[in-house]
């Protein structure tokens, strides 16, 4: 079977190449992986520019709200079929899907609201508490188009994540949902131009894809 099949151009990005691209993206733009509410959430990374700073979670009676941090490690992707050594149940890597492995570090700035009114806690110091979780996810890819027909980007959507061995199950489900939303949003910032998938070879207008199979992300198109 030919690579181009019924189209003129084929671009196949192997999972190792996809991971090289993701590593390049997140190394150049670490703020896409590191989020916090203030400088009180310590690094690494040390550089302020390596973080996306957002508001603390407001809560009545807590001046300044709840300080927080969320950090992901660079995800490692595996395109269908599974070559990662297996996924934790109930995840299964179906056709046209990818799996990913990453870690998430959740930080909570633990403090007190009493501050100077409490002789036992004369200052409002906060203590960062951290939990680092390994997680596995599955997802799929999409094509989004610019104004020009056939020109656009490949995006990654996370459909589900699994964190093993958190009890009770309700807490695991809650955390999985929270982290899936956050990871999906973080990974959604990665938009690979079609031409990047072919490393710039054979300028083409996308006709079909992205398709995930044979450990590759595949695009099919016609020469521009």
């Amino acid at each position, binding site marked *: 079977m030919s690579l181009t099949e019924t189209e003129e*151009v084929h671009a196949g990005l192997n999972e190792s190449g996809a991971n090289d691209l993701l590593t390049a993206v997140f190394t150049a733009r670490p703020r896409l992986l590191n989020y916090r509410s203030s400088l009180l959430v310590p690094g690494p990374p040390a550089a302020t520019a390596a973080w996306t700073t957002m508001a603390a979670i407001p809560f009545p009676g807590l001046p300044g709200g709840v300080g927080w941090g969320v950090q992901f490690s660079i995800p490692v992707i595996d395109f269908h079929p599974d070559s990662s050594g297996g996924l934790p149940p109930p995840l299964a890597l179906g056709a046209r899907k990818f799996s990913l492995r990453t870690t998430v570090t959740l930080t909570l700035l633990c403090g007190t609201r009493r501050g100077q009114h409490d002789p036992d806690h004369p200052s409002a110091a906060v203590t960062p508490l951290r939990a680092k979780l390994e997680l596995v996810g599955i997802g799929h890819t999409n094509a989004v188009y610019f104004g020009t027909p056939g020109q656009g980007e490949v995006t990654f959507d996370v459909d589900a994540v699994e964190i093993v061995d958190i009890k009770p199950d309700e807490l695991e489900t809650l955390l999985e949902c929270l982290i899936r939303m956050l990871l999906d949003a973080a990974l959604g910032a990665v938009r690979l131009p079609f031409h990047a998938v072919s490393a710039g070879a054979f300028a083409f207008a996308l006709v079909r894809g992205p398709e995930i199979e044979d450990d590759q992300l595949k695009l099919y198109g016609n020469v521009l």
Partner: protein
Amino acid sequence: MSDVIAAIDEGGANDLVQDAEGALGTLSDSGSGSLGPFTATWSASATFSGGTADLIAPNTIRLTDVRMDYTVSFSFSFDLSSIIPDFCLPQVCVDIPFIGRVCTPRICINWPTVTIPVSHSSFVKFTADFNPSVTLVGGVWKVDLVAAGVPFLQLGPAAAAIITAIGAAAALVLLPIPFIGLVLAIAVAAITAAISIAGVLGLLGPILSPFVTGLSFTVYEQSQVFEVMPAVAPDAAVNVILTAITAAVVSTDEDELVLNIDLSP
């Protein structure tokens, strides 16, 4: 397996070659060479278009009926006396009554050196096999299709046209020369005969053949530092390194030109 596999079929390769021909632009050269018994200085330019790609595994891209449009301008100088013998009008004397003997001066015609400029534009089609060549020079990866051997150029019709053009140009140059009128046709015929078709081919071949010898069309060109995503404030550009590239023609149920590319972040 390579990080990136990019493939293009024969239909796409046709478009790719057309684009590469356009990107090659106009080639030009100049020099001097033999034009029959004369020495001509010349300048020439050529552009390429068309052709049909046939991908042949493992390493051949055959381009059929590539059209080379060219313009050749040349000029050659020679002593006209080498073509037409010099001659003298003898002194003529007559006796005129009451005046005496009157003689005309002896007039000798010494033909000048003339320069004949000729310009000829035409096209020639050729078929040639090309091989993919991958290079990394100065931090830039290129995949070129490089002509193998010396493609044959059928220049006979062009040579005949150029002989006609030489005759017309010679007539224009010679016409103003005093006393040429009687022998103009003879002179033009002598010039074109001296050069001959073989003489034109002897000049035209060495001018045009270098344009197709080693002819190269670039079908892939990227900096080794490949920009995946451009810089958008506040984010820096995202780059990867293209560490290795190979190119080959692969035949399955279809013939395709395939690039295998490896990356590193």
